[in-house]
């Protein structure tokens, strides 16, 4: 190609080749934000009308969720308690276990086994939640029922265990990343002072990675709060404030999933379900902000 022709093309093409990609990317980004905004607006618009039917106090403190009785009761306390209980118990199961798995992969297992472990974890993460729920229903529930002589094996413990399995890969892989990010030179310094491998792991590596592990745990928690299918299938579905870990519960998410299809659009029940959606969104938003704060503090350090 003659030099002049090339120069001319470059000159005339400069505008388009500069502007087009920029425009496309900007449009894509803006439409994402726009969509997000509308989803939130829609959620609020559909959720708020319930407040004209019942007071926020009744919703927050009422412990009866009878949306189709007359008069209907919209006490969300048992549902909220169910969500919190299942989430917390799943974290109690998954956080120590996930951290231990991460420590094993980053500091204990030999280099060759590491890839195998990481891939296995990822496969665990790929498991569709409905498959896990299914396992909970047909394997875990009958076993628990027989073993602990319960009324039902579909309960908080069952659901929390499955949720724990579900969020384990999230917690373990993210924790492992932050453990691996702890410089080898710090491990060397510890060894050179006469520390054993385990002392080094628990007194240097773990504390140095603590912020990363905390944010991994919160991200796991976020998944656990929002997860629907597993709790719908395995939690038992009774809208009661749990007194013990083997009590059945009905978290917010599974309530929405179970009842949305059977409620008339625009009815108070419908609005109540959307209100729950708002609550869930608020909750995950707060957790997310917490993670962002921890992360920015970590970067600043």
């Amino acid at each position: 190609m003659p030099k002049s022709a090339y120069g001319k093309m470059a000159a005339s093409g400069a505008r388009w080749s500069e502007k087009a990609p920029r425009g496309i990317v900007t449009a894509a980004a803006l439409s994402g934000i726009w969509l997000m905004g509308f989803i939130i607006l829609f959620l609020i618009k559909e959720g708020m009308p319930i407040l004209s039917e019942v007071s926020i106090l009744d919703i927050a403190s009422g412990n009866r969720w009878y949306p189709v009785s007359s008069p209907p009761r919209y006490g969300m306390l048992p549902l909220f308690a169910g969500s919190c209980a299942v989430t917390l118990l799943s974290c109690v199961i998954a956080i120590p276990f996930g951290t231990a798995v991460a420590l094993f992969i980053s500091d204990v297992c030999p280099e060759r086994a590491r890839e195998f472990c990481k891939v296995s974890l990822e496969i665990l993460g790929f498991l569709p939640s409905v498959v896990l729920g299914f396992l909970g229903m047909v394997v875990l529930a009958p076993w628990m029922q027989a073993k602990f002589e319960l009324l039902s094996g579909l309960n908080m413990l069952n659901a929390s265990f499955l949720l724990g399995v579900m969020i384990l890969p999230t917690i373990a892989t993210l924790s492992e990343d932050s453990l691996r990010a702890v410089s080898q030179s710090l491990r060397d310094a510890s060894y050179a002072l006469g520390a054993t491998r385990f002392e080094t792991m628990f007194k240097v590596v773990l504390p140095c990675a603590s912020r990363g592990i905390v944010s991994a745990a919160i991200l796991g928690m976020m998944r656990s709060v929002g997860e629907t299918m597993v709790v719908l299938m395995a939690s038992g579905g009774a809208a009661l404030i749990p007194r013990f870990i083997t009590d059945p519960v009905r978290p917010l998410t599974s309530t929405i999933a179970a009842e949305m299809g059977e409620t008339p659009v625009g009815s108070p029940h419908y609005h109540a379900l959307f209100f729950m959606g708002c609550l869930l969104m608020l909750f995950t938003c707060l957790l997310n902000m917490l993670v962002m704060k921890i992360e920015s503090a970590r970067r600043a350090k």
Partner: protein
Amino acid sequence: MDGAKLKTESLSMAYSANAPYALKDISVDVAENSVMAFIGPSGCGKSTFLRCLNRMNDFVGGVRVEGRVLLDGSDIYAPEVDVTALRRKVGMVFQRPNPFPFSIRENVAYGQKLLGERNKSRLDEIVESSLSSAGLWEEVRDRLNEPAVSLSGGQQQRLCIARAIAVSPEVLLMDEPTSALDPLATARIEELVRELKKDYTVAIVTHNMQQAARISDATAFFLMGELVEAGPTTGIFTTPSDPRTEDYITGRFG
């Protein structure tokens, strides 16, 4: 030479079973309460050698060590040796300052806490005496609870020295301790090394020949995994017996 604190006898080392030797047949003596410098071009094995002296190479899978390393006459590679106890006796300071991201106090107290020391006033005493020996006490006495990473590079390196001497070692290994520091901080560390030899035996790896000449009593010159020559520093720098040593110290290569 008798009275050697640390002595290697035909030490050879390879990073794995079929890798070539990284160190070949090295016999050298480090006299008690002296500073011995190990010099040589990059990749000559001087850092590898240093890491053999407190068995830091153990973590490299499949590493092969032949010959003996004697600390006070007993072989540190003998099967009954407790490696953690050995590393407390033979402390190490690394190339880049590597303080833990804890407070200054916690950094110095770390080794003692591993040993089970819980008495706070005893720990405070050790922290103060170690920081004083490292020439850092005056600068940090009012900010012991501040994070160690807030110190300057030179201060961090002196903190690492304080941390190493807090477990009262007998030997200090220093792996190019000033290579990441500016000239002023380097001068302070060099001064400190000269002080430290009163209480410790120091083995220091350096790429800086002037530094070796300034601070060491004896010098060993390494080349491609072999010990070319070792002896009193003045002798090595004025009348080297091997032409390769002369070429190196006169700047003909390296």
